[in-house]
């Protein structure tokens, strides 16, 4: 199997006032190129920590992470990150927010016109050409998140990392953006790792759903292969027996095997 992202025996502990807290233990995962992976689990299970490790925002206490055969030693433009709360810079227009990323990656090799074209194309990909000159506070939450996706994709990353990107959106906007993301991923053939709470989102989008056990010392509990044919259509899947079987498997893991009292 093609090993595009490799996570091997990763352990992550944080020193807290109560002593050492082991967040992740013995996590190993191999991700192929072009694969869509979701990480799902109860809150506090360390799924965001795992994503931040791949992003290079955190360094593992033990173990190795590789991306395209190279060790992950810090954040880099080869891994585009979409943050949960969009994290757009409020003093820059949508265009400038994306341009900042484009300039960083391609500024040394390409001219001004090309950089502008790239920025324009990235915003076009998420259907926001009309809002290029708007500031983040002038557009809706869903649009902000789309700019965040455009910013990450504009860098042409090897891997797209998404930390609950649609968590803060209402259900209808979320569904719309999920559909759009599926189309974009198909078009760009991106490798994606996405953290989510949402079982439907996980099954709808993923090639594999990685289910994590509860922390502390969380690890990968089960991996579910989602062998639904693409392109997927949420309406058709609503009555699809296999879809419901897969969905049931995730629910069973979360609410039976890893049942957790409401915090």
């Amino acid at each position, binding site marked *: 199997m093609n090993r595009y992202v490799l996570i091997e025996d990763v352990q992550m502990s944080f020193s807290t006032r109560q002593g050492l807290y082991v967040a992740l233990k013995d996590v190993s995962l191999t991700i192929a190129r072009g694969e869509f992976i979701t990480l799902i689990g109860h809150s506090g299970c360390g799924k965001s920590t795992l994503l931040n490790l791949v992003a290079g925002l955190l360094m593992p206490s033990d173990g190795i992470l590789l991306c395209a055969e190279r060790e992950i030693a810090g954040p880099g433009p080869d891994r585009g*990150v979409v943050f949960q709360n969009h994290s757009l810079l409020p003093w820059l227009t949508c265009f400038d927010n994306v341009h*900042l990323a484009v300039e960083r990656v391609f500024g040394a090799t390409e001219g001004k016109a090309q950089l502008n074209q790239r920025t324009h194309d990235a915003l076009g990909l998420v259907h926001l050409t009309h809002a290029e000159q708007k500031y983040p506070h002038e557009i809706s939450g869903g649009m902000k998140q789309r700019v965040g996706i455009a910013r990450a994709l504009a*860098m042409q990353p090897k891997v797209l990392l998404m930390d609950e990107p649609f968590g803060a959106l209402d259900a209808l906007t979320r569904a719309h953006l999920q559909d759009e993301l599926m189309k974009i991923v198909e078009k760009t053939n991106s490798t994606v790792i996405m953290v989510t709470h949402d079982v439907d989102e996980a099954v709808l989008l993923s090639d594999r759903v990685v289910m994590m056990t509860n922390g502390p010392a969380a690890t990968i509990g089960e991996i579910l292969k989602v062998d639904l044919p693409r392109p997927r259509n949420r309406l058709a899947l609503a009555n699809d027996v296999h879809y419901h079987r897969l969905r049931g498997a995730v629910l069973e893991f979360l609410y039976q095997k890893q049942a957790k009292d409401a915090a």
Partner: protein
Amino acid sequence: MNIRRYFGEHLLPPLIGAGLFIVVWMILAQSSEALPGPMKTWNSAVALFSDPFYQNGPNDQGIGWNILYSLGRVGVGFSLAALIGIPAGFIVGRVQFIDKMTSPIISMLRPVSPLAWLPIGLLVFQAANPAAIWVIFISSIWPMIINTAMGVRQLPTDYLNVARVLNLSEWKIFTKILFPATLPYMLTGIRLAIGTAWLVIVAAEMLTGGVGIGFWVWDEWNNLNVEHIIIAIFVVGIVGLLLEMMLVRFAKRFSY
């Protein structure tokens, strides 16, 4: 239609406040020989402001000149403080080692009345005017350093994560993230600084002399011209208010 309501809600209360203020002033003036009443002060003010820019030698100049000289000293001292204090604030906020190194010194020096620095200024500069500017500089620099550093420290981790993920250069981080994110804090520092500077200039000029609103008050006290002292209090208050309003308006343009 809404003019009456506007009048009732927004104009009437301050007018009543001003009216009461004048009434209390009148009663106090009635019961005291030395304190001039509002009418007398008003007449004196009209006379004073009818010729604000006369010049009769170095110690007798119009009120306009006195105000302008004071504003000039504040402007110079304040600008020097901004020139040094704001970059210093960025460094203090960004480099933890320097923060820890300087914070005890800043905490110790900040509560010291800026006037205590006047003798040092007189000693070093051997002249009254630079010494007064020096006092303004000292009084303005603390809020600028402290607020700028606070802004830098409170930079949301989200923005820093963006910078890290995009792998931005230090220069880009400064121009695209650090500076714009810190600007509102910086402007708060500037506002506090100009407030204190304007407070301090009156006292500093009383001590150093020369042309300036502070010395003018002291001079009028020596002449026992109490109307002019009261006028000076109003002038200082109004100029301070205008400075503050100008900066608030300026700061509003930079809030996100």
